[in-house]
């Protein structure tokens, strides 16, 4: 299935402002503990880590676990100093990796 994301970054920030960034990604977060109607164990398929970078520098990182619900939502902060590019990286089981880039405008 196609991967969809919802990323909420303020359109503009003042230098030194603490901004709230929110990100949701579509993902089933299959726990690995459930069985299908035939009784077969469904293999675990979760996002293991999420990180957010400003330029090359990772400023937020989080581990995710089977107890996290589908379509995980994360909210975190960043102190904006200069304009640049934010990179959102989700990676997990079965070689899952998804990146999104969002411009951050500071003025």
């Amino acid at each position, binding site marked *: 299935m196609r991967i969809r994301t*919802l990323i909420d970054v303020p359109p503009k920030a003042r230098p030194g402002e603490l901004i709230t960034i929110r990100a949701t990604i579509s993902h089933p977060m299959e726990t690995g503990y459930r069985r299908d109607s035939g009784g077969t164990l469904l293999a675990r398929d979760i996002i293991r880590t999420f990180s957010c970078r400003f330029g090359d520098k990772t400023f937020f990182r989080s581990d995710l676990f089977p107890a996290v619900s589908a379509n995980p939502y994360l909210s975190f902060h960043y102190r904006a100093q200069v304009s640049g590019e934010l990179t959102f990286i989700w990676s997990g089981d079965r070689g899952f990796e998804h990146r999104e880039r969002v411009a951050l405008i500071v003025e």
Partner: protein
Amino acid sequence: MIVARLALRPLLWGLATRRLLLALALALVPLLLLSGHTLAQASGQPPTPGFSTHSAQRTQPQVLQSPVDRRRSGFSFMSPATQALQQDDAQNPAMLWVGDGLRAWREPAGRGGNRCADCHGNPNTSMRGVAARYPAWDAALARPVSLAHRINLCRERHQQAPARAADHEELLGLEAMIALRSRGLPIEPVTDPRLQPAREQGQALFSTRIGQIALSCADCHERHAGARLGGSPIPEGHPTAYPIFRLQWQSLGSLTRRLQGCFTGVRADSPEPFGEIMSALQVFLRDRAAGMPHEGPGVRP
């Protein structure tokens, strides 16, 4: 079973009559305020806002002071955390499907290669209020169809594309995108006379006991609305927020899927997703919720 149906009918009639009276009373409020205002001015007294000496006010003061619609959306039964999830589009997981719906709207489909946008243009204008008035009449089938069914019919007739199964991701995407264009608008009552037989059929189904557990919709969603079933509140069953992202499903789903859940819950066979029974029930439920604001795409526990 028949006894139960007979016993429930007056209950439903009572509800309909009460709603009618309430609507009448609401319509009278501005009139009364206006007359009070002019009376006060004529007698040289300063007008008192919201107060009038009209006799109707003495007989029904509670209606004038707080014209309350006693119906409650499922939203009001939810925890503040779940309510916040619905109200913030950056958190509402249903918005993931809305983006998909917009993409499907603009992409050619089927042998015809037509896009939804070719006929319907900009959804912001052409789809405004649409979700608030479905199910609607389909001339070719000569019966009412749900919004998802209509999208499927459009696929078959105008795009020469195969119909999608109920709750297919693409249908849900389009339905969610269209539902968003009716957010906050009141759900329209059934006024099309052609829908009347379906509405009556739906009303009868609503109070008919079914399944091994022998419960009717009304048993839970009218008699015991507000009570709890297995720790969860029983809502009044107003379909105001469909398609919903249901936390229990961990996915977006239609009113059809939700109704199927209730059919399974009382151990009855589920009717066909796009069939006559399902659409009749939906016509009645939408009419029952007429006037309540459309919240879709919403979140439910």
